[in-house]
């Protein structure tokens, strides 16, 4: 069924299609319409679930964790400061190997207050052991929630996943979205039946104390699970494509990269703008492409090594900044390419913080600059684009 809906409603419809059973939630701008819609679904009986109106995001994730230990499929949604408040409990979910799925409406961190798109909140949680999927469209948001449950609940994986949609640009913008048929979703995603869960009559401790001679084995197994998730994400997406006719390019979604001289790496909603700029420049005969980070965790190491072998220049656009270093996408790609047989010229571009528009002009400017870099070599300094007082890069 095709409906016109916002990214937030796409999240709510995704959780409903996946038959989430326990939904603890706390409101934050711009996530609110996700939990409002889910409260409505539960209230009308369209979704058979328990909506738990908790008093904080920390409690939202803590309730997800405990419900998940009992074998319930759980979902919640948050944004920026709410995600930061959850930080501790995010690790409870991943370290306890619980397949919680959550939407994060990616938004800037204060001060100064900003409710607009920015990836700092999501990037700051990259080390918590969650899978992270950046989405480009509302349809991808809905579809990725369904796929994420299937990946997360796989026996060898059992890890949580964060579905990231950009504040307002996706969360509050309406697009036509296909809401998949429930029977097809049900046959694609069976009900959650974990191998180990808390049961009455089976006295076990979930999260006991371990000694230094025991702890590392737990983390090693988490590492193996996240490694396995790389292949599982691809195979689940393939199954999804067969069932629903849509797919999104695996961990690193390439557009016009096969014969590209330079590629722009980006994540989230800006990828849509980059595609139109690629089309425009291609029409002028410029060999440019887009490599969209779809999964930031697990990180697409092999995909980047493969891309590096084909392009001479790689521009990395970060919508966040790790102070004292550079954009997180950039430093991680640099690390991934250290032992690549061929390394392109690279440069980091910082843009769009706090919801500043990343216009086609700005993107065209990046492509022009990175084409020059192919001759001159990498630039070690990240360039902040479209900032007052700095030279403006315009095509």
């Amino acid at each position: 069924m095709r409906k016109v809906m916002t990214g937030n409603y796409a999240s709510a419809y995704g959780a409903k299609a996946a038959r989430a059973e326990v939904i603890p939630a706390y409101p934050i701008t711009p996530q609110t319409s996700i939990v409002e819609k889910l409260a409505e679904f539960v209230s009308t009986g369209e979704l058979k679930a328990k909506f738990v109106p908790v008093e904080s995001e920390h409690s939202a994730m803590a309730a997800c964790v405990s419900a998940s230990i009992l074998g319930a499929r759980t979902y919640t949604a948050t944004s920026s400061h709410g995600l930061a408040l959850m930080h501790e409990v995010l690790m409870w979910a991943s370290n306890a190997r619980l397949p919680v799925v959550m939407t994060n409406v990616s938004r800037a961190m204060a001060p100064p207050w900003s409710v607009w798109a920015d990836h700092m909140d999501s990037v700051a949680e990259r080390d918590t052991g969650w899978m992270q999927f950046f989405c480009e469209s509302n349809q991808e948001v809905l579809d990725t929630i369904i796929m994420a449950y299937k990946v997360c609940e796989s026996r060898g994986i059992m890890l949580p996943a964060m579905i990231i949609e950009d504040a307002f640009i996706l969360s509050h913008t309406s697009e036509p979205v296909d809401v998949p048929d429930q029977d097809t979703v049900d046959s694609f995603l069976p009900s959650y039946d974990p191998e180990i869960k808390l049961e009455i009559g089976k006295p076990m401790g979930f999260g006991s104390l371990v000694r230094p001679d025991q702890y590392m084995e737990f983390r090693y197994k988490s590492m193996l699970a996240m490694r396995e998730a790389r292949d599982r994400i691809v195979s689940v997406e393939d199954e999804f494509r067969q069932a629903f006719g849509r797919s999104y390019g695996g961990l690193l979604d390439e557009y016009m990269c096969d014969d590209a001289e330079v590629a722009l790496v980006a994540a989230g909603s800006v990828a849509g703008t980059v595609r139109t700029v690629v089309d425009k420049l291609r029409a002028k005969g410029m060999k440019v492409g887009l490599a969209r980070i779809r999964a930031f965790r697990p990180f697409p190491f092999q995909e980047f090594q493969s891309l590096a072998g084909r392009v001479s220049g790689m521009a990395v656009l970060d919508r966040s900044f790790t102070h004292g270093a550079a954009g997180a996408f950039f430093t991680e790609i640099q690390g991934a390419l250290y032992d690549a047989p061929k390394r392109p010229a690279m440069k980091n571009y910082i843009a769009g913080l706090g919801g500043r528009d990343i216009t086609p002009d700005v993107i065209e400017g990046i492509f022009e600059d990175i084409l020059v870099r192919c001759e001159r070599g990498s630039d070690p300094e990240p360039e902040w684009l479209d900032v007052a007082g700095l030279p403006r890069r315009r095509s």
Partner: protein
Amino acid sequence: MSRVTIPEVEHAYPGSTGCPGCGANLVMRYLLKGLGERTILTIPACCWAVMPGYWPSHCLKVPMVYCAFEATGASLSGIRAALDMKGVEDVTVVGFAGDGGTVDIGLQALSGAAERGTDAIYVMYDNEAYMNTGIQRSGATPWGAWTTTTPVGSSRDYKREPKKDIMSIMEAHGIPYAATVSVAHPEDFVKKAKKAKDARGLKFIHALSPCPPGWKMNPMKTIEIARLAVDTNVFPLYEVENGRLRITKKGKGLPIEDYLSTQGRFRHLTEEEVKRMQESVDSSLKALEEREAREG
């Protein structure tokens, strides 16, 4: 005929890693005697997060979730929601937390669970300081007590603030049942646990839990000191059922010195300070008795 007046069945086995004379061991033991085997525990950071033993050991006969320090109330709501979705009704869900995890860092989540009316029992075992981390003051440390963060040096920086009144805070949420219990009065304890189990909504149990290392007391005197707390009216035993208060065990009205002198943490107090504590205890008891008379 058996002379034992509480259930003989054990759901807490020996082998916990608690200190000798630990009151919290008995709080768990009596609680589970009252609640039975169809119980799920959620326990945040506190002594009892360590006491079940190193993985894969587990000294309890009931399953247990370990939760984040400040998250017990939220964990209760999550567990109850999952049981509701699975159609399980005959299971008692219990949050079991120390005083710091309750009156300080966990107060927000507990308040949330109470306001949401989560059907669960929250037990605070109160050893009156952060004992698992080594005796630091909490909001539940009584006026006058020494702890490592309220040291009694030349400036006599013992705890200068009164103990947070968690029973009143919980009552103010309009919860169906709240009670104080003592390990020196197991019949009263078990009866209250059963009452809490049968009421619907969030129930609160405040258990005084003597701590030999933290209170600087003789580990052989746990029961004696717990009994003195009741008999000196430092810790009156009462319950509040649907807003009506009833004192369940009358103390003997012994002077507070009898209780304070058993513990090194009060050793520094002057006669004047002890007198002040006696006055405070007397007025608290008077308020309880007056209220009981009004509501009884």
